[in-house]
């Protein structure tokens, strides 16, 4: 079996750099995107096993991304949302739109890995 494929959408390079490193070390294949439009583009050619997306991104927010994946692409790919602290309202909306889980900043990479594994096992 090949590596599980993750799509990581995060516009903060610092965080993205760290997460990318940890996810790859964790045995995943990671495609990194720094904005929502790019994510959308990647999704036409790349079918990830799971999507991790920051809720706030230029041009195409995490919310729009969830909506796009669920409604337009009709995919049930698990989506984990990265939210900023104090953004609970948005997290609720994200769940309503079809997000599977969320993790708030500051992020612990180890926690994210656990959450990813949990979502992947559900599939």
């Amino acid at each position, binding site marked *: 079996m090949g590596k599980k494929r993750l799509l990581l959408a995060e516009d*903060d*390079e610092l*965080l993205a750099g760290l997460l990318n490193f940890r996810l790859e070390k964790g045995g995943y294949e990671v495609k990194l995107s720094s904005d929502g*439009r*790019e994510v959308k583009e*990647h999704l036409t*050619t790349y079918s990830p096993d799971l999507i991790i997306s920051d809720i706030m991104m*230029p041009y195409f927010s995490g919310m729009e991304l969830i909506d796009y994946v669920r409604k337009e692409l009709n995919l049930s790919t698990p989506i984990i949302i990265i939210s*900023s602290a104090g953004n609970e309202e948005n997290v609720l909306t994200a769940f309503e739109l079809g997000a599977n889980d969320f993790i708030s900043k500051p992020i612990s990479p180890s926690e994210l890995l656990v959450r990813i594994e949990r979502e992947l096992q559900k599939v």
Partner: protein
Amino acid sequence: MNPKDLLSQLTRLEHTLNDFSFEELTAAEAAHLKNSFQTFRVSLENKIFTPSSSIGSPTEIDIREDSTSKNLKKNNIQSPNADMLVAKVSHEIRTPLNGIIGFADLLKEDKLSKIQLERVNAIQTASYSLMEIINELLEYSKLSAGLEQFESVDFNLNSVVDNVMYLCDTLITDKNVELLATIDDEVPVGLIGDPSKLSQILLNLVGNAVKFVEEGSIHLSIELKKQRGNQIFLTFSITDTGIGISKNNLEHIFDSYKQAEYDTQAKYGGSGLGLSIVKQIIDNLGGDISVDSKLGEGTTFRFMLPYKKGSIENIVKRDSTISINSDELMAVKGLRILVFEDNVINQKLIAQRLKSWQCKTYVTDNALYGLNLLETNQIDMVLMDLKMPEMSGFEVTQLIRKSKIESVKQIPVIAVSADFTAQDREKCLQHKINDFILKPYSPDELLTKLVKHKNRMKTTLTFESQTINPAMEVYSDATKINLSIILEDCLGQMDLLEELVLLYKQNALEFIGIVKLNLDNEDLEEVAFAAHKIKSGLAMMQSKSLYTIVEQIQKICKTNGDRKHLNFLHNCFVEEYPLVEKAIDEQIKALKNR
């Protein structure tokens, strides 16, 4: 040992080095290794090619030019020194010529009478063809001196062919010529090799065919010759129904300074170096080329090149093929773009592309001319090739950022590069390059980047819907920073942590600048966005004091927008940051010594 053999070996060594997986090395070590190798190579080249006395005197060149004698049949016998001279001279001619072209361009924008305009156009046409000849000469001498660098990257064969066909199609004007390309199913789409050299060869051969075919067809076909493990050998053939080449001329067709007939030269122009360049490139890539022709019936060029099989993953990363979105096309319409690019083919390609999207395009490889354009014309965006001969893209960007004109200083610069290393990324940040795109890119990728930066230009980012939690913790003083948590997150990899710290520092400095600028411009939306962006990095590096300041900045932007208060907070950040930086540096030192 023949210096050229040595050089080609060096090139091979360099390739191997590039291919080598640096996973075990840290980015800094790898960059260092690469750098020192480059320095070594350059100094070696200097030693080999430094003219000793009056080598490369005019007479020597004359001999080469006139000679059709048999002892010069192989064009690579020329002494390296002569080639170096040619390279040097061509380079020096290019600079003033660029000036001529550029100023003719500017002249055209003045109000000219019809006859004046015609004359300026004539100057331009002549300069352009002179430039083309010089470029070819330069390239040829570089090739035969073994100075040309070859890439080894993943690329998509289909998109290379598509690009070439697209360009050649634009060369066919009011002629009844059919252009056709077929790639055999057995040929893998993903290859590893030098895509820009391949497109150069194809463009030259197919472009030549277009010149010589008045009516009929040109057919490019690509087949798999053989495959040995990862090694792939491809046969390319270009068949046309053109005027053909006589047997006599066929013999010398790949020699330098030889075009079929002198009257052909007069009719079709060019330096006559095209095919010699093609042959040199193919030789250097380890392939071979042959030609078949019958006068009046047509010509077939056939060449073989070795490649390695590429991985599909890498190609997906490089060019995703999606259909062009009409909204995006509308968005870039009328955009004014300045392209810094030295490769003639890429110049043509990008100019053509942008033109088809109805962008106004300026292309140059001359920094000063480009800057002049920026300062005298309304230009919205810059595409910057990082590797240019006289001045690198980094240096040009630095000049742009130093401009006295605010709009020029702020212009989005998108770097274009075939080989984008981690070191380049850092350098981009340092030089305030906004984004980058990897060569070869698909039109969609380019379009997406253009749209992205067009939007950013107008700062249409909406920033709302985030509720601020007013209950902030009271943070302890800045000078106590504990990076062991983040180091744990980095699995104890010190070099990764240091890389992140470097990014962190750049982000912080950038933040200080952006906030200052936008406070002056009263653009609080941008201030808030910058504040949001930097927060997670501050949290990651445990910079609690800075985090608190930034959170307050964010909050005020969204509520009353009190300028005085914002200025005060910005000052706090500016004063606090050096202390934090010092604390971080000390932590790093301590962790290293642990």
